[in-house]
């Protein structure tokens, strides 16, 4: 009884707090287990988005770096490398800063640079990692982008700390600086590293619809201009297939890269373990996949699932948002999967949508384990790639999915394009959201920040609610064409409702993309907080 009264009293407080009376609605005070002490140590971060610094228009922007949080709300030190559409600013010292972490894991992060600062909205997924969006909006620049941060292990901060086989996915822009490029590029592959030497590398590249693949070599080294950054921040330089990069070691299993000589490629290399199947007959899993990139229409996202029993692929389901055009693929023919015996973990899967018989959907993948990998779309039509897109492949486990296991607190992030109105001139521009929701009985409640870049300023603390609808057992593995869906309602001074199709990887992770509203092309993840 006492507990019930307490619950009622809390609810009453939340209600009054949620109604500020000035036309805007604020979320209730956050509840949860996190605090500033939850962010403590050295973290490698990466975001991908765009910036506006006056004088020129918004520019694609990628940043990778390292910051050290002291567990009390202060940033002690750090460094970052920035690539703006091929123009780099390297080894920028982070001289300080501050951060907050609310009980629900949401918070803010400000990194102080020499003459300015950059701001992020964050949501912890654990004390070791979290999701983030760039929320910088000051006199010097506005920048946005989605990304994440993950705790570093200083014990790996040496050239030999990058050792063994890795798979990588570096999307971005190519190095062609002549108009009308830079153009979209997806560069994926695998390599073996040992004491600063990269050997046995193999890549698949889609550079502005031009496919290429082949072996490569490279090097890993200290940055001769910033030698101390290796031992201090895990930062160094690499040469991969002739392209220069800066890297940040997270630990022996993950390294973050950003290109530094023309072009703007960035992403993670993840250690490949010995569970990677060597024979296609040993693959007996369902997989969820998601890719994002550019098509001739604009932004494109695809999300789907399939079941692989050896080379036989069944129950393929895919959803596409081609810059506002929604396409459902419910039935397929000629679906199959194969492995490349010469390159461990590399393979392809393909299927044909009867509606597009002349362009079989084709993907190359690199598994870093038996359950995870990266993929690059290689669908072509009339000898031309239909898009430049890549993403993630993950085994679907833990089903069936229902309200009993899709429950608890989740970090949420999405990124993409939406039509926005800034200065009276409506255009499509980047949209990034990060937040936290509690899922109970498949209903969502929480809060989020959103940065619709055309507006120039992020909007903080939107009241976030919604619901998830699960079709059947939630795996879509039974040949059913029905989908899991999610509705997210965002309320501040006005209300926005976004509808998504959702594919559960497991009860702790889901991929989603919007499946209604042609004015938006976004995709994102729901990830359990631990």
């Amino acid at each position, binding site marked *: 009884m006492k507990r019930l009264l307490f619950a009622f009293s809390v609810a009453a407080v939340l209600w009054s707090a949620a109604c500020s009376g000035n036309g805007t609605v604020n979320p209730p005070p956050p509840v949860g287990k996190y605090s500033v002490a939850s962010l403590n140590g050295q973290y490698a971060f990466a975001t991908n988005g765009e910036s506006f610094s006056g004088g020129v228009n918004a520019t694609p922007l990628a940043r990778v770096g390292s910051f050290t949080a002291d567990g009390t709300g202060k940033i002690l030190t750090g460094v970052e490398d920035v690539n703006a*559409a091929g123009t780099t600013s390297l080894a920028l010292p982070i001289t300080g800063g501050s951060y907050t972490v609310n009980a629900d894991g949401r918070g803010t992060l400000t990194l102080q640079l020499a003459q300015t600062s950059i701001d992020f909205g964050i949501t912890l997924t654990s004390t070791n990692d979290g999701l983030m969006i760039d929320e910088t909006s000051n006199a010097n620049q506005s920048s946005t982008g989605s990304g994440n941060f993950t705790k570093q292990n200083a014990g790996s901060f040496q050239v030999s700390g990058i050792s063994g086989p890795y798979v990588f996915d570096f999307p971005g822009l190519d190095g062609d600086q002549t108009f009308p490029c830079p153009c979209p590029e997806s560069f994926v592959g695998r390599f073996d590293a040992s004491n600063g030497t990269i050997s046995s590398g193999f890549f698949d590249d889609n550079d502005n619809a031009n496919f290429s693949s082949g072996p490569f070599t490279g090097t890993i080294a200290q940055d001769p201009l910033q030698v101390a950054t290796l031992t201090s921040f895990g930062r160094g330089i690499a040469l991969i297939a002739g392209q220069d990069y800066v890297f940040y070691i997270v630990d022996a299993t993950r390294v973050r890269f950003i290109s530094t000589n023309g072009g703007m490629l960035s992403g993670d290399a993840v250690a490949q373990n010995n569970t990677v199947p060597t024979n296609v007959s040993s693959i007996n899993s369902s997989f969820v996949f998601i890719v994002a990139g550019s098509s001739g229409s604009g932004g494109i996202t695809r999300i789907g699932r399939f079941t692989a029993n050896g080379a036989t692929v069944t129950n393929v389901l895919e959803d596409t948002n081609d810059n506002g*055009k929604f396409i459902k693929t419910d039935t397929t023919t000629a679906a199959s999967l194969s492995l490349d015996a010469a390159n461990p973990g590399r393979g392809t899967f393909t299927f044909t949508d009867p509606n597009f018989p002349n362009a079989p959907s084709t993907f190359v993948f690199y598994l870093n384990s038996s359950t995870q990998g990266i993929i690059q779309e290689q669908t072509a*039509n009339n000898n031309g790639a239909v898009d430049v897109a890549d993403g993630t492949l993950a085994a679907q486990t833990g089903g069936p999915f229902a309200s009993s296991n899709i429950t608890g607190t989740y970090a949420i992030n999405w990124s993409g394009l939406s039509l926005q109105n800034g200065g009276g001139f409506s*255009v499509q521009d980047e949209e990034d959201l990060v937040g936290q929701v509690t899922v109970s009985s498949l209903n969502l409640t929480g809060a989020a920040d959103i940065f619709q870049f055309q507006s120039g300023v992020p909007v903080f603390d939107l009241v976030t609610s919604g619901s998830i609808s699960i079709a059947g057992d939630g795996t879509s593995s039974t040949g059913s064409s029905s989908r899991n869906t999610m509705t997210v309602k965002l309320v501040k001074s006005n209300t926005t409702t976004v509808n998504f199709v959702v594919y559960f990887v497991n009860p702790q992770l889901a991929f989603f993309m919007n499946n209604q509203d042609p004015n938006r092309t976004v995709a994102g993840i729901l990830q359990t907080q631990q």
Partner: protein
Amino acid sequence: MISTKVIRSGIMALGIVLSVSSLAQSQQTSQPDVQQLRSYSMSREVFLLGTVVKFDSASVTLPMGAHVVLQTASGQVDVHLGNAKVLQAAHFTLNPGDSVRIAGEPLALGDSTYFAARIVQKGTQAVAVRNTKGFLTTPASLMTREQKEALRGVR
């Protein structure tokens, strides 16, 4: 402001592969095979010549982005111009009554098609809104060397 010389010469290099009237007719009476239009091909590129009926930087017509409705000799054609910020960055405006020439081609969007512009030209000013592979250009494509160098100030 980018030089339009390269773009103009690019347009000229295309040659007049189809007359405006035959193109407009193909738009209306003979829909191309959607199956063959999932990737951009310079070999299919044609010209549209017409008068602007309506320009919308954020049209409700798919795909998302800027669209212009042209009155051609054979009727009205809706043309996708991609990212309106590219036009804005090039100080390129379209108003009703403007005479424009557009190089582009039909592209598939699911089970339907739309006309995808690669180059839009008004008078002596031309802007490439797609590259030769059909992908949308971004404002970053329009930056001068000096503007790119200034990006070193981005943090």
